[in-house]
């Protein structure tokens, strides 16, 4: 029975059925399936699969986005359950995520949110057009591990640098990992501004975040980790 629920849930995420996903998630939780199992067996594999199929040209952007929406809907419920059961330590880490100041393109950011939560991160989504100062304030409030900043407009790139410099000026650079991504963002740019990491795709961002929280190194003390850049 429970396998069936997992299968159905996997299917619902893969096909981007947001309402069904939320309903099935509730049913699965109510029937006693552990939140972690739901994530590992239904949500994570579904997102991985659609991500791969997108990378292959077998699925296209709207499908990826809808799957992300569905996964997000499910993860909101699952993360709450996880935290209420086992406290925040079950989560891999807390990420404060947003689109840089001057920019309002959030499709990529929303995908990253879905993927990160599906992979056990608590994500605080700040939205679009976020100043460096706001990123930092919210990171402080949330006691974040990672500040993730995306930009699709070339003109917003300089503010990513500003974010890192501001952390330095405030003497708190070592408190948060700062990662960057988005269309015009390159591994080179991430290295130039001394970000802790760069991810090319959403899936790369997940790997990046896992590596950072597992690294045991302080932010800004390691070389910029580059995940999935074009060679």
């Amino acid at each position: 029975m429970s396998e069936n629920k997992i299968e159905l849930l996997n299917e619902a995420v893969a096909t981007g059925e947001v309402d069904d996903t939320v309903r099935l998630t509730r049913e699965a939780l109510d029937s006693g399936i552990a939140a972690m199992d739901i994530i590992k067996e239904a949500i994570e594999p579904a997102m991985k699969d659609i991500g791969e199929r997108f990378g292959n040209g077998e699925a296209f952007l709207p499908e990826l986005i809808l799957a992300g929406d569905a996964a997000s809907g499910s993860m909101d419920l699952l993360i709450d359950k996880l935290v209420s059961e086992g406290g925040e330590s079950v989560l891999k880490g807390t990420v404060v995520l947003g689109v840089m100041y001057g920019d309002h393109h959030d499709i990529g950011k929303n995908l990253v949110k879905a993927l990160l939560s599906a992979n056990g991160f608590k994500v605080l989504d700040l939205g679009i057009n976020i100043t460096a100062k706001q990123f930092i304030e919210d990171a402080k409030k949330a006691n974040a591990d990672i500040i993730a900043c995306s930009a699709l407009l070339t003109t917003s790139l300089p503010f990513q640098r500003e974010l890192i410099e501001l952390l330095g000026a405030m003497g708190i650079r070592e408190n948060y990992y700062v990662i960057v991504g988005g269309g015009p963002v390159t591994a080179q740019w991430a290295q130039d501004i001394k970000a802790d990491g760069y991810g090319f795709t959403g899936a790369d961002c997940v790997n990046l975040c896992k590596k950072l929280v597992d690294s045991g190194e302080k932010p800004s003390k390691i070389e910029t980790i580059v995940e999935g850049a074009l060679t």
Partner: protein
Amino acid sequence: MKKPGAGWRLACRFIPEGDITVFVPPESLTATQRLQLEGKAAETGADPVVVPVEIRPDYNRSGAGLPDDVLLRESLASAGIVVKKFQYPVLKELSGTLRQEEKVRLVVRQGDVTGVLHPGEALLGVAIDAGTTKLAGYLLDMETGEILARKAAMNPQIAYGEDVVNRIAHCAQHKDGRSRLRSVLLEKVNTMVQEMCGERGLSSGKIMEAVIVGNTVVHHLLCGFPVKQLGLSPYIPSVGEALDVAAAEFGLDISTGGRLYFPENIAGYIGGDHTAMLLATEQERSNGVVLALDIGTNTEVTLSAGGRTLSCACASGPAFEGAHIHYGMRASEGAIEGVMIGNGKVLISTIEDKPAVGLCGSGILDAVAELRKADIIDTRGCFVNSAAETVGEGMEKSFVLVPRNGSGSGRDITVCRRDINEIQLAKAAIRSGIDILLRKMDMKAEVLDRVIIAGAFGSYLNIKSAIRIGMLPRLTAEKFHQIGNAAGTGAMQMLLSSGKREAAGKIAKNIEFIELNSEPGFRDIFMQNMYI
């Protein structure tokens, strides 16, 4: 490129590891491109901006010791013409010309004398449409409205940024960015003016009036205005009013007394070129429900109905200019401009009928439409397994349009999954703009009486293909009107007529600008429109 072969790599993906020498085949520079110059000649009206006045000074009065300018003013007054000012540059030439001939041809602009010509000398004007990618220039006889010469060129600012956002970013990153972007474009405009004059054996010193139209970013860069704020939401222009400046002060090499006019900008990404296009199509848009599009890297869409005019800017990107497409190229010889697929055969047509070397905008649009029609790709743009022979894997999975033994480059000309995706993104942007404007007016596409399509790409695109892929609404053929370079036509109208300048101002004022990204549900509409 993952597969090695024949020493070719994609220049946009190739990262040099050391010093390299770049060899640019000369053919790529000289092959003339199909740029757009069809703009129609404008009619002269009852309200010309500049008029020539021939006057034979009343020399009987000169015995009274009157200076030349005073004598002229009095002679003009007796002929019923009241002059406010003789502009400074004119005064330097006045006496010389007077003493050569008995009569003199004064150039009068809104009451001021701004130039002096010899009797019978043509009064010239120039109109420039400065697009993000392409420039179009027109040299006119301001008395007859006749187009004496046309010239097209690439906007040299491309070297500093393919699109306007990248140019703004360049300025942010380089201290001399703004001055450089202004000077390269101004230089090019001056060169175009010289070349047009040269073709007809005319002197640019006789050009008394100029009009330049361009999108807001290009306008600001050319005029030396700050662009930083244009790069940040909500993208506010520094200058929106029309400008009337002294050409000499601006750096435009025409008559020293010449003037330069820029019409109003509408929004951060909708500039005077769109104002000009709307002016040129004013009559056509005044009846019924009319959609007007200027398709380019930045596509402006305007919906006119019941006295209201709504406009938006869509980030269509350079795919229709051939960029970001594997075998994409600009519209020059050898570019595939049309494609038909049927009965297992592929038929193509190329510019100048030369052997195919790549695809231009209209070609890739056709290709996607035909691939869909033949069910080789599905509504998501993905290749249908076993529907046809494809090569490659994943995003590089490709359909061969022209095999190497038939192409002009010795390589297969293909369309890959990634290319199709680029076109989907571009057409979704445009269709979403159209859908949102219609929604704002509470109308459905079916009620459209007319769809006006302006711009170079717009002139050559196959309407059926555009409808098939969902870029344009499904309407009957006669409702579509491909009008060529309407911005150029509007610029010429403003060159000749002060009434037209006023009309353009009213149009700009009346426009309701819609910021697409702020519209609820924009994302969902965009995604829906990605389906083919």
